[in-house]
């Protein structure tokens, strides 16, 4: 018997992983949640049939979405994370001892519950005493925040389904308002490769450019996401992601990482020409 998980990356491209066994499935108020075990990628979590993370490659995504803003901001104390019920971003954040408070806003309580039970490798630090969990709509939560956070990390799903509203201008505008004067927002920025993803990426970039004085994009290679070529958005009120980045200071922290390093930090902002062109089109 062969059991395969398949995700449609485009109407003409499919990506499959051979499944060893399915551990969990449920329909929450917002989405279908599944957890599988596989030989190649270890345990993995999908939402509405879309790959969220695998044990084998989640470190790339979580390190890159977290350490880049944390290395640029000179003194990040109050952090807001939106989405991220799997706990991966929280795990990376809790490694910074100067962080005082982390608010986690996840719309779907069940994702947190399932992650705690089946994905201990990412959910391990959700119990850290600096972490405050709010199960509500991120758009609603942030509407009430003013001049409060140093760093906001938007770890969203795709721009359709429950994550849709985290790709809107009203949301980015609210993030701007919620950040302090030198605050930074980093977001999951989709992929430039396949047409539909690229369109979503451009739409998001246009809205962020209109909402923040500084808006750059950086990349990473994530094998289980469509095309493997993935982008993150770096939006900021004051600091430039490369020019204002103190690599010596970050290295002094002595954090051990698997993907991120300070050379790669600068390099990640160097983008292929076709991506630069797409971004310029909407700037």
């Amino acid at each position: 018997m062969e059991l395969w998980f398949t995700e449609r990356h485009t109407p003409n491209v499919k990506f499959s992983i051979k499944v060893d066994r399915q551990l969990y499935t449920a329909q929450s108020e917002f989405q279908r949640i599944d957890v599988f075990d596989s030989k190649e990628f270890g345990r993995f979590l999908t939402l509405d049939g879309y790959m969220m993370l695998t044990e084998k490659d989640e470190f790339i995504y979580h390190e890159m979405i977290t350490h880049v803003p944390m290395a640029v901001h000179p003194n990040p104390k109050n952090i807001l994370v939106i989405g991220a019920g799997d706990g991966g971003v929280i795990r990376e954040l809790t490694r910074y001892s100067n962080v005082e408070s982390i608010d986690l806003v996840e719309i779907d309580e069940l994702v947190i519950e399932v992650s705690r039970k089946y994905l201990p490798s990412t959910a391990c630090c959700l119990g850290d005493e600096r972490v405050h969990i709010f199960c509500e709509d991120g758009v609603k939560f942030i509407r009430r925040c003013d001049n409060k956070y140093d760093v906001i990390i938007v770890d969203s799903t795709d721009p359709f389904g429950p994550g849709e509203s985290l790709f809107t201008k009203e949301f980015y505008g609210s993030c701007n308002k919620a950040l302090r004067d030198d605050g930074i927002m980093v977001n999951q920025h989709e992929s430039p490769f396949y047409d539909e993803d690229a369109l979503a990426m451009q739409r998001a970039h246009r809205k962020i450019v209109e909402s923040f004085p500084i808006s750059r994009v950086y990349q990473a290679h994530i094998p289980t996401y469509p095309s493997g070529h993935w982008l993150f958005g770096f939006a900021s009120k004051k600091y430039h992601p490369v020019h204002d980045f103190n690599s010596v200071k970050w290295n002094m922290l002595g954090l051990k990482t698997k993907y991120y390093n300070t050379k790669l930090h600068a390099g990640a902002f160097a983008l292929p020409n076709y991506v630069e062109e797409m971004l310029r089109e909407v700037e």
Partner: protein
Amino acid sequence: MALSQVNAPIYEALRKFRRMRIVPFDVPGHKRGRGNMELTEFLGEDCMNVDVNSMKPLDNLCHPVSVIKDAEMLAAEAFKAENAFFMVGGTTSAVQSMIMYACKSNDKIIMPRNVHRSAINALILTGAVPVYVDPDVNNQLGISLGMSVEQVEKAIRENPQAKAIMVNNPTYYGICSDLKKIVELAHAHGMLVIVDEAHGTHFYFGENFPVSAMEAGADISSVSMHKSGGSLTQSSFLLMGKNINADYMRQVVNLTQTTSASYLLLSSLDISRKRLALSGREIFAQTVEMAEYARSEINSIGGYYAYSKELINGDSVYDFDLSKLVIYTLPIGLAGIEVYDLLRDEYDIQIEFGDLGNILAYLSVGDRKRDIERLISAMAEIKRRFGKTGTNMLSQEYISPIVAEPPRRAFYADKISLPLEESVGRVCTEFVMCYPPGIPILAPGELITEDIVKYIRYAKEKGCQMTGTEDINIERLNVLI
């Protein structure tokens, strides 16, 4: 087998028909989509398959004897009407049919001036003469309210020979007149009550809504099922009470209705009626809950005023439709129409309309919580980014019309075209209105005043979409020679 609200006879007949795989040598010529593959790919094969012509198994809207008749009976039952007709020319055609039924040439009809253009169109078609009741006005918000009972009484007294009274239930802004009382008055004077319920479908199915026309004992009502009820655009119901001769009404409707009624529209009415009859109560309870939530969140932003039942004054605001999310925007220094444009251009949110002082977000059977959150956040952002102190803001004022000629005579009279400013003091022969809401600023036969021209200029400057005139740019008006 007896039919009940779980049935949808037209829908069921279409499904059966599809299985019969009939070879089409009739219209439409796309022959189940094969003749127009690009369109079929766009709309889907399922859709093209049921875009068919009237035929025995599917009945005929002009003269229903089987499945359409059954579906109309079920609709009548659902709306607690004596009879109901499926309409495929929009609520416009239903409103026109009501007036053409009630009035012949030179008959008088009492109506509020803030009616939809379709009602005044019907006056041009029939030659009926309007007796306008000035609606009461809320000067702070700049909106027209309902008719006060006293005003209606006065109009009846002064025009005892009028054939009918027309009532908006509710207005676009969700405001209702005292319909029961008006019905009582009208019937005591031998007049019919005809009701525009384009925005009141949900009154028939939800709880705690204002009284519906049929329940209030009105004679005829036009219901836009496609607005809050979930059917396809252009599909509506015409509802009749016991005083109405439905067979004659059918003839009136057939004067202007297509003989090739779309089965897409008919089946959408049938399925939507079934859905609302079975679960309308829960659906609209949810809609109201979302509207109430949005109101309280938007009011907590500050500046905006999302109004509700506190407007009720026992007369010209006899009741308020809680599903309507209307927001007064002038305190943040932006005209409604400006907020309307910002929502779309900046935030990809399309709302129903913006006038000079208000916006309306339409909530209905299909709304999602997360979209409501987006709307609220976008409103907060608009205030933060674009808000200013409101000075020199003109609010919508109700300008009492001066009717110089009946609409029909003015429309067909010899006319000349004059630049806007030069037209003051002349009698207009055409409509001028912002669309939406489609309520005329000027109707054929009305005197053009300085106030009206000023108003048109201001509305244009703020970006209202103006329609109705022969001159597409609304720089000139047609007036009587």
